[in-house]
């Protein structure tokens, strides 16, 4: 089933991910990092299923550990000395903790990007930037079409060449390489020739003439406005918390951050809500759908 947040307006999707990724990068508070990582992890599971779980466990978790252990080897700030390395440099608790926080930040950013890749498909990106940078957006959409087309064409060329005994599997290594280059050369000629044909066709259909409109299937709805409003309110709230020093974190010289007093906890909950918004939307939608199906 398609994720409900993906059906929102592309601008909403884009703003959401841009802000959440920036927040994950710059809010180095341990609680915020954990919230961001957990939410990104859950959302990527929801979007990509088992594939995401495999990737997260096989790649991200080992990376997290390695990065966390690397930092103290290069960074000797901090007041709590754990022990001295064989080179005589102190290994500090603060450096270990900062390394862990930085690694957690990186891993959650990667996780958010995997969600971004699933939600912000190229058509949405094209829609968003088609008005700002029309020429490059057109290039972009053409490239997306050309890549699979070239792949198909290269199969055609390879088969045709194989009929003449010039395929990649006959002859010695030199011969094979020559055949390979020959196939690519034919490919490039075809591609350039084909591109001129496309351009001529575009021109004769009126590309670049004034007064042409843009087709799009995305319209802003009421739910998009509500989402944005809620999202901006939460973002401003969290930023205000950091700006006023209600929530803070400091790694060097000694670790210090706001714990679980009632006031900071409100901000943690706010951030949790912000990070979980897409997941909540999706779950609510699914619940509504199931109820609807069971009624009818």
């Amino acid at each position, binding site marked *: 089933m398609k994720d409900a947040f993906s059906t929102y307006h592309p601008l909403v999707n884009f703003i959401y991910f841009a802000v959440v990724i920036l927040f994950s990068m710059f809010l180095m508070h341990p609680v915020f990092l954990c919230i961001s990582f957990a939410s990104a992890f859950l959302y990527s599971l929801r979007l990509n299923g088992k594939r995401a779980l495999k990737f997260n466990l096989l790649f991200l978790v080992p990376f997290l550990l390695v990065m966390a252990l690397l930092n103290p080897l*290069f960074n000797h700030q901090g007041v709590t000395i754990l022990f001295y390395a064989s080179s005589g440099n102190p290994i500090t608790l603060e450096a270990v903790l900062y390394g862990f926080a930085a690694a957690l930040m990186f891993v959650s*950013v990667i996780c958010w990007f995997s969600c971004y890749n699933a939600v912000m498909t190229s058509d949405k990106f094209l829609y968003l930037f088609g008005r700002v940078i029309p020429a490059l957006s057109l290039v972009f959409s053409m490239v997306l079409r050309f890549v699979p087309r070239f792949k198909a064409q290269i199969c055609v060329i390879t088969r045709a060449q194989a009929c003449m005994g010039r395929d990649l599997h006959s002859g010695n290594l030199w011969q094979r390489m020559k055949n390979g280059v020959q196939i690519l050369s034919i490919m490039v000629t075809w591609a350039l020739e084909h*591109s001129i044909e496309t351009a*001529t066709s*575009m021109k004769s259909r009126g590309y670049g003439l004034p007064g042409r409109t843009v087709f799009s299937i995305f319209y802003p709805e009421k739910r998009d406005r509500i989402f944005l409003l809620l999202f901006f309110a939460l973002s401003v709230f969290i930023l205000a918390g950091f700006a006023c020093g209600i929530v803070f974190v400091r790694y060097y010289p000694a670790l210090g951050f706001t714990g679980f007093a009632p006031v900071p906890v409100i901000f943690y909950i706010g951030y949790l809500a912000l990070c979980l918004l897409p997941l909540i939307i999706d779950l609510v939608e699914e619940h509504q759908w199931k109820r609807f199906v069971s009624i009818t």
Partner: protein
Amino acid sequence: MQYDATVTNKKTRTVLTGLLFLLAVPILLAVGVFILHDRSYYLISLLLIICSMIPFVWLFERRKPQARELVVLATLIALAVAGRAAFFMLPQVKPVIAIVILAAVCLGAESGFLVGAMTGFVSNFFFGQGPWTPWQMFCFGLIGYLAGVLVQSGWLPAKKIPLCIFGGLATFLIYGGIMDPAAVLVAQGYLSWQTVLVAYGAGVWFNLIHAVSTVVFLFLFYGPLTQKLERVKNKYGLLDG
């Protein structure tokens, strides 16, 4: 007329780049130091990179390029993206830089930059976007732009062997030289001499493979690709300058 357009374009670009570097860069650095307390290196470097790419994009859009130009650029970008996909299984064996350099040599510095930056951007739609995308776009674009400028100004002869040497060096020094510290910055949030040196040490073999593969691709494709591009250029009269 075409000549006039390119000359004014170059002038505008110089002015615009100058303005950006004299105004935007110091402002960004000041914001980084005074407002963000010299902590958010990633954000500041990201903004600087975006600033450096704006003049190209803006000028390209402003001169309302012809359909032919767009399609030829798209074709080259698609070839580079497909090439990157074809060698996906071999780490760091990428024909992207070779194609970018040849595009710059035949079609000029601006096209070289656009082919490079767009290849970095679009290929990540196939391989996955991440915090590294802007850096890749910048590196590919910069190499393309440099190749175009050096060839146009006569510093770099547009022949096979000099281009191979340039390609190898540019891949190793510019791409590797920027991407390795960028990886550290993305993962750690700050840079220090030790971590950068470790990143270079760990990346030296990857960069070497990348550089060698670029040289090999340039050596193989220089003849066919330039010949074909020149032919299309002459036959249809496009993208001069």
